């Protein structure tokens, strides 16, 4: 059995008899298989001089990344790179002693360690459990061996941490690792990826060779690692939502909150709040997060206290607006050049058969009845230029929405909102169906209620999370030009144990 000279996890130098790394405690026996890989790679010997020779030739290194001793942060680079490889040069100039090599390039040791202890060891599935990565810095594991990243399956079977809130509180948002790029959609990240390797190396999803640093950027290729908010999924027993940053925006400025509240009469209120940050404003991502949290919490509280739903909805929109206004620095008040944080907000509350919606801006709620017994319907009227034109009878709907100004919103939450005009409406539902609450990132690709009904998956009522995922996919397949968020509330409310739901309620 070849002897390790440095720890594959942290690059600490080892004594010949060590069974565990003296620095990070990594078990060293586990690292053997990768080491064998290294031998395979270099012929017969994990001798660093051989490796140095091999480094210069990136082509030899396919699949070798998961290997070995230090050697190879740099190797891993080489194997995955498209185009010229700066690393190969550096490597050839480096000391041929493997130990030195690792020492000289912190990336290298780290990287090799991540592989050996993570994906390389047991051929992990596409989605690592959070915290599994030895670096502990980010939860996303590389795609499964044999699956090109852009063709990886959707993570239906992935463990989804779900928090079921106690009644009348807004639970913390749980997060699952971002889904891999979907088949069919043109993923701009594709350009950064080389030919998929059977055994990817580091935890960076862009170059697959580097590790993600504390600041969220890959220490090798510099790409920002996916952030928690890039793709968020959550479900409660009665409602689920998915938010995705889409394919053309660099961050997710949408946010949502889900909650359930127990009414004084024992009934249950199901709450979904969806917000879309105004991109042209400052810190829109913070605006949407603040609004959804504040609005959701207010609804849950008031409804648990027995408030009348439309009144609660009205109050919640005001509370959400105040939370967004509070984000604007006081010194910017009155400064016409300062674009205060702003967002839209749409909420739905289902209590028994009574559906209440409330909104400001152009995020929407739809009612999609099951089985074609009723016509699907949009339940909200946008605060937008186009909607105003149509409403005023100045333009046809087709003309108004074709105008470049169509999406300019006329109502929003924020310190610079001219007038705060929360809209609310209530409906009695008398047939099974689902309520969709979404941002324009979705409805841009299925504008009318009928179009949405057409793309709604069967089983939407029994699997709201699957339904939300599927609708987000529709937007991504359509181009994913904006952030996409949709919450799905089945009616009648599913109680507990739907297939795919997280924990059952006691």
């Amino acid at each position: 059995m070849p002897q390790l000279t440095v720890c594959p996890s942290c690059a600490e130098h080892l004594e010949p008899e060590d069974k565990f790394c003296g620095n990070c405690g990594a078990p060293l026996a586990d690292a053997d298989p990768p080491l064998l890989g290294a031998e395979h790679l270099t012929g017969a010997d994990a001798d660093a001089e051989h490796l140095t020779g091999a480094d210069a030739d990136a082509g030899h290194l396919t699949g070798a990344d998961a290997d070995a001793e230090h050697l190879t942060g740099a190797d891993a680079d080489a194997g995955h790179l498209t185009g010229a490889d700066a690393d190969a040069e550096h490597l050839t100039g480096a000391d041929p002693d493997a130990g030195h090599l690792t020492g000289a390039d912190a990336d290298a040791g780290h990287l090799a360690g991540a592989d050996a202890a993570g994906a390389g060891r047991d051929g992990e599935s596409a989605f690592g459990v959070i915290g599994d990565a030895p670096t502990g810095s980010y939860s996303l594991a590389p795609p499964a061996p044999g699956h090109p990243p852009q063709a990886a399956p959707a993570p239906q079977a992935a463990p989804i941490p779900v928090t079921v809130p106690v009644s009348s509180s807004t639970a913390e948002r749980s997060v699952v690792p971002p889904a891999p790029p979907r088949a069919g959609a043109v993923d701009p990240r594709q350009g950064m990826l080389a030919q998929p390797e059977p055994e990817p190396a580091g935890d960076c999803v862009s170059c697959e060779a580097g590790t993600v640093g504390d600041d969220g950027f890959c220490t090798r290729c510099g790409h920002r690692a996916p952030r928690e908010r890039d793709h968020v999924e959550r479900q409660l027993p009665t409602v689920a939502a998915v938010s995705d940053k889409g394919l053309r925006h660099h961050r997710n400025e949408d946010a949502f909150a889900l909650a359930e509240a127990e009414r004084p009469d024992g009934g249950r209120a199901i709450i979904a709040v969806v917000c879309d940050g105004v991109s042209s404003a400052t810190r829109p991502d913070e605006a949407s997060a603040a609004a959804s949290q504040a609005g959701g919490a207010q609804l849950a509280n008031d409804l648990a206290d027995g408030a009348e739903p439309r009144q609660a909805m009205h109050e919640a929109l005001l509370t959400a607006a105040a939370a967004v206004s509070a984000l604007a620095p006081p010194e910017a008040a009155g400064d016409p050049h300062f674009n205060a944080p702003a967002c839209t907000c749409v909420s739905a509350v289902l209590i028994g058969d009574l559906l209440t919606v409330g909104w400001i801006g152009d995020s929407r709620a739809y009612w999609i009845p099951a089985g074609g017994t009723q016509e699907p319907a949009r339940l909200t009227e946008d605060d937008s230029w186009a909607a105003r034109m149509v409403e005023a009878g100045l333009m046809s709907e087709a003309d108004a929405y074709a105008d470049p100004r169509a999406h300019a919103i006329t109502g929003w939450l924020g310190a610079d909102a001219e007038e705060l005009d929360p809209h609310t409406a209530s409906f009695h539902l008398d047939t099974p169906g689902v309520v969709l609450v979404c941002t324009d990132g979705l409805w841009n690709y299925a504008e009318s209620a009928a179009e949405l009904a057409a793309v709604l998956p069967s089983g939407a009522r029994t699997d709201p999370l699957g339904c939300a995922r599927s609708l987000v996919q529709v937007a991504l397949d359509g181009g994913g030009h904006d952030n996409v968020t949709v919450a799905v509330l089945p009616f009648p409310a599913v109680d507990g144990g739907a297939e795919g739901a997280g924990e059952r309620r006691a």
Partner: protein
Amino acid sequence: MASFEKPEVPVFSTEVFQNEYLPEGGAEVNAIVTVTATGGGTGAVRTGAPADAAVVVMVDCSGSMDHPPAKMRNARDATAAAIDTLRDGVSFAVVAGTHTAREIFPGGGRLAVADATTREQAKFALRKLTASGGTAIGSWLALADALLAGAGASIRHGILLTDGRNEHESPQELRAVLDACAGHFTCDCRGVGTDWEVKEVTQVASALLGTADIVADPGHLAEDFRQMMESAMGKEVADVQLRLWTPANSLIAFVKQVAPSVADLTARRADVNARTGDYPTGSWGDESRDYHVCVRVQPAGVGQEMLAARVSLVLPSAGDEPPRVLGQGLVRAVWTDDMAASTRISPQVAHYTGQAELAGAIQQGLEARKAGDTDRATAKLGRAVQLAAESGNEDTAKLLAKVVDVVDEAKGTVRLKRGVADADEMTLETRSTKTVRVKKQA
């Protein structure tokens, strides 16, 4: 009350100005990094803190310093003024420079420690500064290097005065000495009169990370020396490195200091590892400098975000300790299909791009003028006038106006002056790299 702690190291803050948004396929990332050191001692009265600094003053004593005789006398007075400005406890020496270098004070390959007595002794020794012989600046610097090496001080500085061309050694010899001294100590250089070579003096100052200037009138030397020494005494921390991390497969187009003056550092990189390199910035007191970093990255898809560079100020430490990071800033790249975002130009980047062009235009214009290429000189200096006016660089505009007649400042229309004083031309050339900072946006 006396404090025996080490002098306070200033606090460094870093600010990054850039438009991080790139269009699809965009690869070039530009950023201005402003580094400000505060909390050091410049201007403040220091009592009791042991001064961890050493200074060597190199005075040209070539034969030409006697023409006019006042020049040598002024140089002696200036050196005396510099000595008077030394803080107690600072190690110092005076070197007379001709075709060789000679220790004037204290002698014996040592430095003296400044106090009332040694200051008087040094000033008395200045009578030994007499003009005779040639000029070999490299030999002066080599002696200063040897003296400072023995001092063991963390701030090591030289002040060099010359009045003539470096005639008694080859440019290669000077280059070799500069390469050997670089990083050992910093050095401010002054040319007195108009018989010296601007390029030689600026070359020394730039290699040794100091300032270069002209003192056309020897009568102004004393005040200039006093100021130079004051600024040297304000330095709190030496050997600060600008450390740049860039991602794999990227290319550093350039790294320049752009304020208070333009200095291209690109070629002075010392690799730390595959993706990290250090650029020397010398010593810092309470001051602020701007750097322009330009990196070419592999374009990523729209919606992607990348760290194009991590800029930090680090203080290398002796031994095995990791270097101390004094400040850090991130240069980002975000690809977007929003044209409004990607076509915006950072005012800071635009300003300093203009200032760097201004310095280049002056240097090229003066070169063309010397070569008799009137058309090119007129075009280049005209462009310089225009850039100086646009950016509000009034000092440079005034210097330009002594070399050209300005017809239309905004259009850059100028006529070359006849009979320009050597001092005016040399002043413009020496100070061509001086920049002004971005005006506050209304």
